[in-house]
């Protein structure tokens, strides 16, 4: 297992490097002068052309691209990501206020949706061809075919504005920053962000369950005199989730990308909303860095799910597959 862990960890490094290169190239093509986001704007206002040219030399902006790339990478690692073009705030500061909000939203959304998707798929398979199965399948179809922002807007209208059960948007009531005080704000976005993911997961789990329920080892387990609950959970379900892990890994980027829309719909101050705001303000450096963090989050999440797959399947752990 340890060997597997390090092997996966090693394959992680080139992926991150590729992402940073892509982001760097993106920044290179940003229209305008890179110097504009490398030094605080208020400082720039008092500079002459000459000092700026000097700055450019000092900052190495005239160096070849690959040297600038490594310098830039070093700065990022030190936490120096430049400045926003719009308000001159350090990009690192923006990220540190926005990133936790998004991590909270997506991690909770992911957890809730995964649990619901697996649970519904499991129930649907056990009750196959019954009204329960049919209704879950129908709900699943609705879930994958209607875009999430529609569910989001409907939820805001119904629960936020009509019944006023939940705040229609935002992340917290001013002055009440505790996690438990934030929960009412999280309920709707957390549920909505995972709708299509839940539906997809449910469909795959159901199929996978139906498949494993017919396996010889399940019949053999039953012949030991085990209870149906144990046969279904410890043998059928345990094996059924292994192929489903691939679906989970594949859906993580889609789920995280969903924050761009969902955060805007719920006026939730996270990375997704930040990206949208920065795009409309043409604040490319912020867009790029925010994208970098989102890509990083996707990589880390996939890495964790990969490790979980290995824990679940001895054949992966021992490198037989």
């Amino acid at each position, binding site marked *: 297992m340890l060997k597997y862990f390090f092997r996966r960890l090693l394959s992680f490094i080139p992926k991150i490097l590729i992402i940073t290169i892509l982001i760097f190239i993106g920044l290179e093509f940003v229209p305008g002068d890179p110097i504009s986001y490398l030094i605080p704007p208020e400082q720039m206002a008092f500079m002459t052309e000459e000092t700026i040219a000097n700055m450019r030399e000092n900052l190495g902006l005239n160096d070849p691209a690959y040297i600038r790339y490594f310098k830039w990478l070093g700065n990022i690692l030190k936490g120096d990501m430049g400045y926003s073009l719009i308000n001159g705030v350090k990009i690192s500061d923006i990220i540190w206020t926005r990133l936790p909000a998004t991590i909270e939203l997506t991690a909770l959304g992911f957890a809730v949706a995964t649990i619901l998707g697996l649970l519904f798929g499991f129930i649907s398979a056990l009750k196959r061809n019954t009204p329960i199965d049919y209704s879950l399948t129908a709900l699943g179809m609705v879930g994958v075919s209607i875009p999430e922002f529609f569910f989001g807007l409907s939820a805001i209208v119904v629960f936020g504005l009509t019944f006023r059960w939940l705040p229609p948007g935002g992340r917290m009531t001013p002055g009440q920053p505790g996690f438990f005080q934030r929960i009412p704000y999280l309920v709707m976005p957390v549920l909505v962000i995972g709708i299509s993911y839940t539906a997809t997961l449910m469909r795959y789990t159901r199929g996978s369950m139906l498949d494993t329920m017919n396996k010889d*080892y399940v019949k053999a387990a039953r012949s*030991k005199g085990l209870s149906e609950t144990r046969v279904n959970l410890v043998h059928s379900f345990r094996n059924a989730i292994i192929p489903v892990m691939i679906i989970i890994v594949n859906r993580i980027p889609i789920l995280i990308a969903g924050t761009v829309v969902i955060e805007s719909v719920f006026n939730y101050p996270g990375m997704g909303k930040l990206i949208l705001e920065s795009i409309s303000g043409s604040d490319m450096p912020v867009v790029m860095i925010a994208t970098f963090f989102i890509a990083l989050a996707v990589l880390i999440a996939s890495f964790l799910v990969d490790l979980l797959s290995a824990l679940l399947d001895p054949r992966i752990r021992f490198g037989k597959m």
Partner: protein
Amino acid sequence: MEKDYILQVKNLETRFKIGKKTVHAVNDVSFNLRRGTTLGVVGESGCGKSVTALSIMQLLPKAAHIEGGQVLYTPSPEQTLNLTDFKRNSKELRSIRGKDIAMIFQDSLSSLDPVYSIGWQIMENLRMHEKLSKKEAKEKIIRMLGELGIPSPEDRFKSYPFEFSGGMKQRVMIAIGMICNPNILIADEPTTALDVTIQAQILALIKQMQQEHGTSVILITHNMGIVAEICDEVAVMYMGRVVEFGSLLQIFENPHHPYTKALLKSVPVLGMGKDTELESIEGTTPDASTVFKGCEFEPRCPFAMKKCTEEHPMVCEIEEGHEVRCWLYEEKCKDDRR
């Protein structure tokens, strides 16, 4: 001598419902298993051997159900249970599965759960039925693995199924089956997936287990050679029915049913003369969902009469313990049982 039987299957009927179609997989099947002996169930592919075996402990697929008949299990002279009285996954039946009656399945190479170690899987059966500490259970399992010829059983205890060869997996399946010391072991073609040398080893192991533990065995096979080697009694099945039942000697020396005769001619039997020619049975098996008015074997039978197309033959006991389902022996019946 009824009490001598540990298992009696009486007029068992098992049906598959597939859409609107009903497949009569097992029809009026009866046979007896004497305590401590081996009963062979033979017949060509699709004749209902596996479905019969699965019906005993109701391990049938969802589409199948038992429509009638009895499965009488007599663990001790004072007690007889009718297993068909119990619901499919009822507590009563579950307490018998794996403990009193164990089964090795036809596709035994895929009968091990790929995600658990083999020790864990044997342990699951053992601790389900016996109150043992983990340590005691482990010791017992390692002893059993050793008995079954698995090298370095302490290390192999933690191995996963994909680390085992076919023959070794089959040994593990026998270990799972035998770990609770069952009264009956049902082995459904335990050697078909294995190569010939391993086949002989596995059969020898089953026989050894039987002798050591006094287990009664139902051995399903389509290999008459295996039957001749280790069975005491034989049930010959054709299209969901037992067409002939008798002791090994009765079946091999004095076969009556035309199908049994043909079957014996169509397979090589150990000790058979070199120049005896093998014959194949004329015709093909009809589809299992076909419903016959008369005898199922009539279309392929060289001795078919008019009566055979009109009426199902009844079972005749032509000799003590030797039963045939064929119109040819109508007059020879010792007594009319039905």
